[in-house]
């Protein structure tokens, strides 16, 4: 279920990219897309009835069912990268606004 939801989120992000011409909204759409993606990745690690994959004194047996921890690690990296890209994009947006005085891509002219 969560997987469908995340895919829908990704599609919303892509729809945003398709329909928006405002730079900030584009960045937001990108972010929505990334969030959907990250949710998706997290969701694939899910194991029904799985435990937190941390060895504690309560669950010493390695035969127990764990949630896959790797996607969480991946998502952390992905989020970090996403943040970096968003920051860069916002910086670019600022510069564009300085130069063209607008956030609308179509109003910026040029070829």
């Amino acid at each position, binding site marked *: 279920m969560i997987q469908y939801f995340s895919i829908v989120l990704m599609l919303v992000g892509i729809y945003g*990219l398709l329909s928006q011409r405002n730079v900030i909204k584009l960045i937001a759409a990108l972010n929505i897309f990334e969030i959907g993606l990250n949710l998706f990745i997290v969701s694939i690690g899910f194991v029904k009835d799985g435990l937190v994959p941390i060895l504690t004194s309560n669950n010493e047996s390695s035969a127990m069912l764990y949630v896959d921890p790797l996607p969480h690690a991946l998502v952390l990296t992905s989020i970090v990268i996403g943040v970096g890209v968003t920051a860069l994009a916002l910086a670019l947006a600022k510069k564009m606004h300085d130069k063209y005085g607008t956030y609308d*891509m*179509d109003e910026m002219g040029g070829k």
Partner: protein
Amino acid sequence: MDFILSVPAIVVGLFAAAVLAYLLTKANKILGALITVLGSGAALAAMLMLKGDINSVQSLGALGFKLTDYGWFFSVLMLLIFFSVSFFNLYWMKKIIHPAAYNFLYLVALAGTVGAFTAKDFIGLFIFWETIVWASMFIIPFGKSRNASVVYYAFSAFGSLSMLFGILYLYSKTGSFDIQYVLEQASMNTTYALVAFITIGIAGLVKIGVFPFHLWLPKAHGNAPDTFSPILSGGLVKAGGFAAFLAVIVMPSYKVFASNALFLGRELAMPVPNYILVFLGAVSIVVGTLMAIKSEDFKKLIAYSSVANGGYIIIGIAIADSLSVGGAFMHMFAHALASAAAFLSAAAVVHRTGTTKMSELGGLIHRMPLTYLVYLIAIISMAGIPPMSGFISKWMLFQSMIGKGMVFTAAAAFFGSIGSFLYVFRPLSAVFLGQLSPKHESVKEAPFLMQVPMIGLSLLTLLFGVFPNIVLRFISDILKTAGLDGLTLNGLVISGTNGQLNPSLVSLIFGIGFFIALIIFIIHPKSRKVDLMDTYTASEFIYTPELLHYSYAFYAPFERLYENAPSTEKWYAALIKKIEEAGQLVSYTFFNNKPRIIVFWMVCAVIALLWGGSL
């Protein structure tokens, strides 16, 4: 045999000479040009000395060389043309934008030519073939048009890449590049043979400038530097004959496809592929002739005439009997000499007057009589009139065509033959005869070193017109090694399918006739010399020589008859336009810098990938 006197040595030597010429030209332009003379001369001498070594095999690294008899024939012809033209280089150094590069590329092209004709392997043939292409591709824009070079390259690349396709296809099937072996293998399998025939055939057709690939000739020949046009027209174009010869005779396609012949059981039975070649040749004759008649530019006119003559060569090779192939070889030989001489005389005219537009010239015979004679001999040969070598080849080709009863082809050939009178006469009339323009009053004869090769080529044309059997004997040997019957040569007489020709006798009788005319002329009262302007003008007074010179739109009534004919030039222009439009469309569709549109394409593409992938 030692390496010093061998084909690889000639090729390497020419490359070395090219580098030397480049360096020396930087120091002294004339010195560099001299290297082209010496280099090509030495190579010619070496190749002539190698006549005894025909069929010897040598290698240079991974490249093999085999001196076949036809390879020797072509090489000598090319070297002769390059050597003759190289004298002109001495005078052109100031007119060429990159003299050093010119000399370098001149010799590289020559090395490529020798290499291509003597390569043992197909891949070697291709490498040298392309070397010629790129060397000449850089020389052509030194002349009057940059676009000409692009056109030249595009056509040449089409031809040579077609050949590459065939070469590699056959390599993947036979596992070898050896020309002899591959063609032998190909001849045993109809599919391979067809691929070889089409691909190598296209290379030949493009190179020799046969319709519909003829467009580059007028462009490149007409606009190349004046010293390089004779090389292109007299020399490099003939490489197309070489490729066609490989495809049709050496393979031999006419035997492979013998069962797919039209008109089986008749004299004119001929395999369909050969018929296609004959057809294209016939069309080129007509197109080349008509376009040559229309040309206003001296060099373009000769270039179109090369198209027509290429048609004869292809027809000769495609008919594939000994007389026709012998005729084609002779025609290549004769036309090489004649068109080189014609272009050289054009170059001499340009050297003195600075233009090739026929309407701006006139009456130069009174200033440059020798150039005029050279041109006269060249056109007599090109029009196939005795006693020049062009007559011999045309005679052989006509014999063969009539023997086969090829009505339509012969009709085209006759048209081209008579039409050639029209176009060769035009420069004669417009450039050399008629009124001398006052601005050319002080023009002088071409300098001595330019006269040397012009006279040399003319004498050769005359020599082989009077005694063609010197060449024909060798051609006969080539035909025999290629599996055809030899020519029937008997002393001075050539025998065709339905007649005999004794060129020496014809020349002798012509000489006697001329002598009688001379006597009649001499014994009668001497004429009074009057000025050119002192002519019948219906009592009008005209003082402007240019106005009394009939040269512009010379054949206007005839041209009008076909001015609306479909034009391949326009077709190609439209094709290029379409490609450019398609390119712009791609550029604006996918590269418009609007994220949402490109994202849209991306989404479409992903959907397409998923949909297509899951089919």
